[in-house]
């Protein structure tokens, strides 16, 4: 039994400690907003925050989350988190999603990136690209992702 703190709530998960956080979220806790894309930290679809850091939940075992806080897309975009809400609204405003499957991970990467910036700092185009390069979108929504990240940063300034 492993205790997991997900979006501020404590859960007890009866699973192999090597189980990736992704599958504890999806199959055990029924939180399907976090997506399975590659299982090897190559595409970013499964990105969540562990103590505020963006991590790939498909390769991070639940044993690594003991005593830490996991934040998923469901909480990041529910309006309670200022940065997450700004990113969510920018994603909607700029109609970023196509199939939408990778967008949970994109939003979690963008949110962690914007949180990492000093307050009021506007990211450069190169910084946005570097921050988002680990997230693949096969639909090719990259142009709108760039615009949305920059717009979210502007609203947060």
């Amino acid at each position: 039994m492993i205790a997991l703190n997900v979006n501020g709530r404590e859960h007890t998960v009866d699973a192999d400690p090597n189980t990736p956080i992704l599958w504890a979220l999806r199959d055990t806790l029924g939180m399907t907003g976090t997506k399975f894309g590659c299982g090897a930290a190559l595409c970013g679809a499964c990105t969540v925050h562990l103590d505020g850091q963006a991590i790939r939940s498909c390769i991070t075992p639940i044993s690594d989350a003991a005593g830490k806080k996991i934040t998923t897309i469901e909480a990041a975009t529910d309006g309670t988190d200022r940065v997450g809400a700004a990113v969510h609204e920018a994603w909607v405003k700029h109609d970023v999603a196509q199939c939408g499957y990778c967008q949970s991970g994109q939003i979690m990467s963008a949110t962690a990136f914007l949180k990492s910036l000093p307050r009021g700092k506007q990211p450069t185009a190169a910084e946005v690209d570097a921050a988002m390069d680990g997230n693949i979108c096969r639909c090719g929504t990259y142009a709108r992702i760039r615009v949305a990240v920059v717009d979210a940063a502007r609203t947060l300034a």
Partner: protein
Amino acid sequence: MLSNIENSELPRALPRLLARGKAGEATMLPRRSFLKLVGASGLALGAFPQLAAAHGSGTGQGASALKPSQQPSAFVQIAANGEVTVTINRLEFGQGVQTALPMILAEELDADWSLVRSRHGSNDAAYLDPIFGIHLTGGSHSIKNSFMQYRELGARARAMLLGAAAVRWKVDVATLRTEAGTVLGPDGRNLGYGKLAEAAMALPVPEKVTLKDPKNFRIIGRPTSRLDARAKSSGRQDFGIDVRLSGQLTAVVARPPVFGARLASVNDSAARAVKSVKAVLRVPLDRGAEGLAVVADGYWPALQGREALKLQWGTSTVEKVDSQRQLAQYRELAGRPGPRHFDADMAPLASAPRQLEAEFLFPYLAHAAMEPLNCTVTLNKGGAEVWTGSQCPGLDAGAVARVLGLKPEQVVVHVQMAGGGFGRRFSSSSDFVVEACEIAKAARAAGLKAAVRTLWSREDDMRGGYYRPMHLHRARIGFDERGNILAWDHVIVGQSVTSGSVFEQFQVKNGIDATATEGMREPYALPMRLTVHHPKLNVPVLWWRSVGSTHTAFVMETLIDEITRGTNQDPVAYRMQLFRDKHPRHRAALQLAVDKSGYGKTPLPAGRAWGVAVHESFSSVVAYVVEASMQKGRPVLHHVTAGVHCNLVVNPRAVEAQVQGAAVMGLSMCLPGAAITLKDGEVQQSNFGDFTVARITDMPEFDVHIVPSAEPPTGMGEPGLPPLAPAFANAIARLTGKPLRQLPFNVA
């Protein structure tokens, strides 16, 4: 997909071939709609199909003459609060039909767009493509084939609401009008659609309706946000992989390393010992293969179980394709005579003042949609239910029925929102659906009664075949100093994507698959001889976004450009001259891209060059003018200006997204590592680490411009892909002086 089918012949024959996949017309949908409606406390507008038939016979209204695909009941639900839910007859997998089709219907319904919602259909007969007569999302046909259908559906529903208001107010219907979800009376009275829906539902469905004058459109043509934008930006959008049924189990399959191989020996004791593994099942797989399905309480334990299997495969009897040997075989084939698609006289070739010879290579490509393949199946007394993101739910339902020994009407395919697809979800063998049913059947036989979700790992998905086929092209072109092309002798070698499928008899004529030659010669009236070879190999192949144009556009547009370079001509002027007045849409698209890009006027930064390409696919034309450079020996794409001609635009925001997205997929084809190769029968790539797709750092700046038009709309899911790679290659060739004749680019 199916781009070259004669529309006139497909509806006659294909439905008959696929009849096993069609659900009964009057049995399934009404029951389901009704249940759904009770739950949603809303009302379906209009009679259910079988009630419509009753209306028709009882009142002489003739509503029964309407097909299910023409009756609003299967497409429009209006709740008491005025919410309008439109059912789409297609799979939404990124292309935006889930918004565009409701826009079209809402236009004629005169709905309040802020109250419009959308949902997926099923394999019900109502959701057949109205032109093709099968359930299909493909070939960029959704808007093209359903534009009039959805307009008429909206107009019929509106007429019924007007009729209900006329009865309520006891006034002549001709005195009433509608505006944004409300019926307005002459005396200022008004009623929202939600308050009229129940009464409207009792009225007969009108057969003939008057459609709006397009100049009065207020929804069609307006840049509109996707209906799913909010759900897809918050993790709340469910996809097929997110289906969770009570007690559901997950299956992961050990498939053979070589396509079609069978098990030689099995030791599954360690797999069975993995906690929460419920069963290890030997199951028949695609192409005569077999494998082991590990069924567990969740994906992770199933995966652990699979890794614990000790298996030996009998591969001695199956063909083991090897990319190196295959290339030699293709080169040898290219020198042989074969069936001809075009057959111009090649005599001028020998005497032409200028000659050009070229060989082009294109690898196998995986679709690599972000959502790995999955399919969830429940078996019960009444039949089977399947949840999956399918481009062809009718075809899949027929396959389900065959595998499970059911009647077609006992199968329901619930079409799920899909995380991409690009053609992979339209498999003529229904391979991943059939496999999931075989596993569900075996699980049931083993005493497991719950629903079973078969889930592919990324590696399974990438190594599972159904690739864009590898192709070799060879060209010999004779021309003069002014670039007049005197003879063009061309050979294409590649597997047919329809060979052996129910589509073969429609697509393959004279031994040539039309999907392999689409995009050749057109729009240039060239004296071409085109010979085609379709070798049969043990690698499953399939259509892949923009199909034949993935390679033909590259070959045509880079060769045309090479002739302009060899004869010192401007690539835009040269193409315009070849289009003459025969191809006004090509001219308009290219001219728009040229004007907006600054081509020929704006000086480029040092080290950059312009590249141009234009191509028609699926009845739409896309022209690209790009800026590219070489950076540390690597081609880099900086800026793309698109000129698009897709006739009337339903949603300009969606067209922009589709052009950009398709272009990114076209850009992916150029990048190092964008290839599937085989060694001794085994696919060598497995994940995004060794199969390259474009990332945000590869993304150029991108402007999309659309040629205004009022002609009936054509599709935009695919046409943005083909011209990207050749435009990029043409720019690089101008910098290096060396033509690029392979995808991915070989610049070494």
